[in-house]
């Protein structure tokens, strides 16, 4: 009785028909997709859109979207329009980032892969793109290994290495504040790389590391670390934190009055962080990788105006520029190579100089031969509350520019041993 009742619900023929259709779907879909795909150049962006790096990822996406619009308006890449495919890598899940990268590569057949903000995810994606032989640009993942010990012929990077950042600002901090430093560092690839760089600078200057606290990514409470740091009476408290961790630490630093007792500094700082801080927490010496206020530098004002239209009035940040430069790099490489083959693109990238309308900074950034690392300009300065009567997003005062190739280690010291396919 029961089995006949069950069989009355779904008939055998219906079940077989449904199964057959379901079985045919995977065969049909790629055919349909590839019919569409043949018309466009596809760039896959695998970056955080959720989680702690969501704001940074959103800005890289806006920059990338502007670049795609501009490229398509000028005829696309090799005469074909560009399509940007976006995937959310999450902010910290390596497995998801790699899975999304594989999806872009294998299912969507992207010509170019872009990503990731998170250093650990960027490295994992780079290793994946290398296995698959796909041209890959890392716009905003800073750990040295991406163009260092784990460099690959097909992987290029727009943002600075952590070593470039620390080298660019070390001398200023040593000269200005002294040689006894205490570190509070975020406990993952990015933080460790930064601290290694600063420790090397400190050692070279005969300085002393008074202590170092590694805090898990996503730490909200820094009071124990600040209590310890203060007890050592350092010349400078070096904060090597990312995103919201930096916001939390700076807010607590100022609430403890430590901004008046200690010199606060670090390497990378971002406008996204400064915008999340109350005015009394905007202090300290930092490195910005790009800044929107560059009087006299060609094309910057137009870029700022274009991004304001896309972002609801906000100025571009360094992240916006990373996304923008990464996409334009794809176009420049393809036009130079007259090809979409990864090996041809990679060879065309060797020594490629960004034109002023893409560089948007003084000097001429170029991709260095030997490690595929862009050599941009670094902006050294200090955070500031918005000047009275000025732009509310003018939260950083640039005091010094450092050329990337002067801050970078020579290729033979980066650990990069580039092996090209035969």
């Amino acid at each position: 009785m029961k089995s006949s009742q069950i069989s009355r619900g779904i008939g055998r023929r219906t079940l077989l028909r449904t199964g057959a259709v379901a079985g045919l779907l995977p065969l049909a879909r790629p055919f349909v997709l590839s019919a569409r795909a043949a018309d466009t150049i596809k760039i896959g962006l695998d970056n955080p859109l959720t989680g702690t790096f969501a704001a940074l990822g959103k800005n890289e996406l806006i920059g990338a979207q502007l670049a795609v619009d501009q490229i398509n308006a000028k005829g696309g890449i090799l005469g074909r329009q560009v399509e940007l495919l976006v995937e959310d890598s999450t902010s910290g899940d390596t497995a998801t980032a790699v899975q999304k990268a594989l999806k872009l590569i294998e299912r969507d057949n992207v010509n170019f892969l872009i990503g990731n903000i998170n250093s650990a995810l960027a490295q994992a994606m780079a290793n994946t793109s290398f296995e698959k032989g796909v041209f890959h640009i890392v716009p905003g993942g800073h750990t040295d290994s991406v163009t260092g010990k784990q460099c690959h012929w097909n992987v290029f990077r727009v943002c600075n290495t952590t070593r470039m950042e620390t080298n660019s600002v070390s001398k200023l901090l040593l000269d200005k504040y002294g040689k006894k430093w205490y570190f509070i560092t975020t406990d993952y690839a990015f933080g460790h790389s930064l601290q290694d760089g600063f420790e090397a600078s400190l050692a070279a200057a005969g300085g002393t590391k008074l202590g170092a606290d590694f805090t898990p990514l996503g730490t909200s409470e820094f009071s124990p670390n600040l209590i310890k740091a203060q007890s050592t009476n350092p010349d400078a408290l070096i904060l090597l934190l990312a995103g919201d961790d930096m916001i939390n630490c700076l807010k607590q630093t100022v609430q403890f009055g430590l901004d008046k007792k200690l010199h606060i500094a670090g390497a990378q700082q971002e406008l996204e962080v400064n915008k999340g801080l109350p005015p009394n927490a905007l202090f300290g010496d930092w490195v910005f990788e790009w800044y929107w206020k560059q009087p006299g530098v060609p094309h910057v004002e137009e870029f700022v105006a274009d991004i304001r239209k896309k972002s609801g009035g906000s100025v571009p940040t360094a992240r916006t520029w990373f996304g923008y430069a990464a996409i334009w790099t794809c176009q420049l490489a393809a036009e130079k190579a007259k090809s979409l083959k990864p090996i041809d693109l990679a060879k065309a990238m060797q020594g490629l100089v960004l034109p002023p309308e893409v560089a948007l900074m003084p000097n001429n950034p170029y991709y260095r031969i030997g490690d595929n690392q862009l050599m941009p300009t670094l902006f050294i300065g200090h955070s500031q509350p918005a000047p009275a009567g000025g732009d509310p997003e003018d939260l950083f005062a640039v005091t010094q520019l450092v050329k990337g190739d002067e801050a970078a280690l020579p290729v033979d010291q980066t650990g990069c041993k580039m092996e090209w396919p035969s």
Partner: protein
Amino acid sequence: MSQLLLFNIVNGLIIGAFYALMALGLSLILNLSGVINFAHGGFLAIGGYLAYTLFPYLGFWGALIASPFLVALIGILIEFVLIRWLYGRDPLYSLLLTFGLAFMIEDGTRFIWGAQSLPYQIPSWLAAPLSTELFFLTGYRVFMMILVAAVVLGLFLILSYTRLGLRIRAGTLDLETVSVLGVNVRVLRNLNFGLGIFLAGLAGVLAVGMLGLEPTVGDNLIMPSFIAIIVGGLGSLPGTLVGGLLIGVASGITSVFLPSASEAVMYVMMAVVLIARPRGILGEEGRF
């Protein structure tokens, strides 16, 4: 070293009080309704964002008062629309639903207020340390301790001396009998959920004075809340309070010797409690 340790113990008590506030709300909901509210951190975030939105109109103090009540109303609505269908079912159902709700709240706050962190300024006289030596005792943290203590006292008074509180306590022990005695259990659960969410909203307003206001602000605070409940004892509000304070102090002490383990130590404590005394420090045996 001893001074450093003392500083961190005192500071740990302050942080622990905050964890306890979060955990009490979670515990209230769990005890009466058997709902594991994984969206508790999301409600904390809503509390922070509503305070930010109300600040230009009501100022810091007005936003501090209004925001938790608004979050509680949202909680009551969500309980009515979503949560109440899960009563009596396997706790896994509520965990899964509230887990999804947590993501919805995160994406919702990101959609409404954006992914960018928002600056939230507390009054300057609160933001300063009370003394040069005890610099970590800021006016804001002391205020937070006093407010948490007052709220916890208020909660215990409500539970001990008001009709609602007595019914909540009775329902925690035997909801069926409470229902048979003519109490509208549906309304009771609804109000209890609102009370728990009120505490989450208050925690959110307090949190954004110290932390960055962004959609994931509650994510890193939800796990210490669960751990506080387990360490303190499932079903016991005093235990939850003790649990919150203990994990705050443990985290503070650990950071003196091994900062990278300051978060992990909470999980170690949870594991030890589960192995050695599964009901928690003040929990009732056989409760769960």
